[in-house]
């Protein structure tokens, strides 16, 4: 009987040597004349154990990890094909507490199936969402999405159902569905893991969306930094076309949906939805003025439904199981699960899908096990490069849209980056401004020039050049960027800067009293701030 061995094709696993592991297994199988099939699955997201090799046995899939190519001979020596004991044996994959304690809905198949096998997808409840969508019709689909309480997982958290309704109710034709796969936030990789580990679920979600709003053409705007995702998606799209899941007559319904990948070219700003539309149209990724919103007038001036990868990938399961099922998870106005991504200096980093409302402490210590360096956690950035920094004492905050906003932060795309006590927070604040300067589209002045001035002013403060006056300049600059930038890049860059200033003033050579103008929610008081203080 053929034994199935799983070795991830996920790019992070490959970056740790998964291809070499797969090759070593292939050679052992050949020389030992064994009957083994190697499946290149996605990653389950437990990167401390990648490359994680699994063997299908009667008692379930037994995991071994982290496996390096040099470990393969000893795995065969220990009869790992029968699931036997080995120093790297982790037990039944589904029973590993790090995975078992999660609520995997969007990521139910990631790491489990062969990502490019349609049969495997269907065998694991794939396309049941589309089937039900075709049964209940467009209006009911939009009602389910609305009822689920799903909010956009790309960063802005806009209610998905409202967006869909708006696009559906706009009469102009043709309409477009665009997937924002320009996942540029440092500390995030959930989009990548879906595209590499379960690309059909994205295709299914986009197809459901297209049928619901009446769109006939779809684009996936994929960042060029993700060649592995491009490969898996390209293969899955071709299969979907050849099997009638995409194209002119989807599953014989007479409805058509064409889907194409468009590549970005290394510009972070193209993750902003209107800059992304400009880029797809073949122009500089300059942010557009809103209104009109894209749902009314988007790509090529036509109604365009734009969602993030994870948002689309979450749609099939909530259509299949019903909106209530999703809505019953989560807290307040933040419903369902969210794939949190733990990165940076974490001992056990990775993809943690949990009901919204889990605490930052549970993610960082419960799942993450503290820092990789073993040193104390000093700062945590939540929500990508435009997100606020949190201190160790703030980690009991719940990860939901409202609780994070109460601290002035953003949940963003769910990225969490941990720093130990060696971090220089003045340097991180400067970097936030520097990144904004590098990636600014240049359309609005606060972002284009403010970010450059921001780096200069932070340098001046740190180097004790008229720090009192320069702190006032920085305060005003942050205020201006926050309120008069055209999009979130300029508008939110002050968050990492202000939170670094507020919680780590000593790194700037400042005292806590110097930064009292920054409120608990990172609002800026512009009256008399920074004056009566110890800076000289």
């Amino acid at each position, binding site marked *: 009987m053929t034994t199935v061995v799983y070795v991830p094709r996920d*790019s*992070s696993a*490959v*970056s*740790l040597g998964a291809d070499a592991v797969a090759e070593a297994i292939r050679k052992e199988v050949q020389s030992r004349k064994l009957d083994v099939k190697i499946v290149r699955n996605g990653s389950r*997201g437990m*990167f401390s154990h*990648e490359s994680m090799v699994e063997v299908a046995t009667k008692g379930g899939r037994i995991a071994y990890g982290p496996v390096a190519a040099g470990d393969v001979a000893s795995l065969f020596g220990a009869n790992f094909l029968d699931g036997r004991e080995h120093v790297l044996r982790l037990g039944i994959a589904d029973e590993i507490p790090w995975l078992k304690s999660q609520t995997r809905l969007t990521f139910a198949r990631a790491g489990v199936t062969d990502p490019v096998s349609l049969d495997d997808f269907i065998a694991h409840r794939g396309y049941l969402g589309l089937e039900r969508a075709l049964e209940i019709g467009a209006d009911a689909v939009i009602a389910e999405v609305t009822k689920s309480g799903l909010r956009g997982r790309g960063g802005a958290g806009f209610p998905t159902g409202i967006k869909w309704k708006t696009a559906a109710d706009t009469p102009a034709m043709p309409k477009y569905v665009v997937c924002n796969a320009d*996942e*540029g*936030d*440092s*500390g*995030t*990789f959930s*989009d*990548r893991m879906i595209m590499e580990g379960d690309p059909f679920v994205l295709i299914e979600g986009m197809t459901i969306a297209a049928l619901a709003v009446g769109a006939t053409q779809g684009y996936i705007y994929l960042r*060029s*930094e*993700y*060649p*592995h995702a491009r490969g898996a998606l390209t293969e899955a799209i071709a299969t979907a076309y050849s099997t009638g899941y995409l194209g002119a007559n989807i599953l014989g319904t007479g409805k058509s949906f064409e889907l194409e990948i*468009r*590549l*970005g*070219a*290394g*510009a*972070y700003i193209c993750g902003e939805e209107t800059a992304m539309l400009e*880029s*797809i*149209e*073949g*122009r*500089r*990724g300059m942010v557009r003025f809103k209104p009109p919103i894209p749902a009314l007038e988007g790509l*090529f001036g036509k109604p365009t439904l734009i969602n993030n990868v994870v948002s689309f990938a979450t749609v099939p399961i909530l259509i299949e199981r019903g909106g209530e099922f999703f809505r019953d998870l989560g807290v307040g106005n933040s419903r369902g699960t969210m794939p949190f*991504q*733990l*990165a*940076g*200096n*974490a001992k056990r*980093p*990775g*993809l943690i899908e949990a009901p919204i409302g889990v605490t930052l402490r549970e993610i960082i210590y419960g799942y993450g096990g503290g820092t*990789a360096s073993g040193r104390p956690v000093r700062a945590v*950035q939540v929500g990508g*490069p435009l997100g606020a920094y949190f201190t160790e004492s703030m980690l009991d905050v719940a990860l939901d849209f409202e609780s994070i906003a109460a601290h002035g932060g953003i949940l963003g795309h769910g*990225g969490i*980056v*941990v*720093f130990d006590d060696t*971090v220089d927070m003045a340097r*991180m604040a400067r*970097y936030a401004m520097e*990144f904004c300067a*590098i*990636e600014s*589209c240049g359309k609005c002045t606060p972002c284009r020039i403010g970010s450059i001035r921001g780096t200069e002013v932070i340098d001046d403060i740190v180097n004790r050049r008229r720090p009192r006056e320069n702190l006032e300049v920085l305060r005003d600059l942050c205020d201006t960027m926050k309120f008069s930038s055209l999009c979130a890049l300029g508008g939110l860059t002050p968050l990492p800067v202000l939170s670094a200033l507020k919680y780590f003033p000593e790194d700037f050579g400042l005292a806590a009293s110097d930064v009292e103008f920054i409120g608990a929610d990172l609002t800026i008081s512009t009256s008399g701030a920074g004056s009566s203080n110890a800076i000289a």
Partner: protein
Amino acid sequence: MSSRNGGAGFDTRMIDEVVAELADKPGALMLVLHAVNDRAGYVPAEAVPAIARALNLSRAEVHGVISFYHDFRTKKPGRKIIRVCRAESCQAMGAVALADHIQARLGIEFGQTSGNGDFTLEPVYCLGNCACSPAIVVGEDLYGRVTPQRFDEILSSATSSRSSR
């Protein structure tokens, strides 16, 4: 503009091929630039008028798009491109020291190509490999948890694979 950086070996027929294949696509310019950049390694200045003519755009429009995106190079790169992530997650795991080491080891700064034409060093802001920080890409290959020592090993295998070719 000087043709020192590539005019010499540049084949204009490639532009014609690329344009013939892609010009009818909506928003074709990005597709055309990607195709030229992939095949030649950069978008030569000499290609701009041809692309503009074929897509019925001004040269300024084409130039504007090339200059906007980090991926589109205007100079021929080295034989292998090394991209080093400089974003927060990698910084939290020593990317600043790693970047210093890599620059010293190659004797070049970001944006430069080594004298022998072997390597071009480029910054990148997130490779999505944040759970295995710090991350770099050498040629087509992504590496995670890269230490200065591991970089040296990667570099020597990249160098030996080239000389054995």
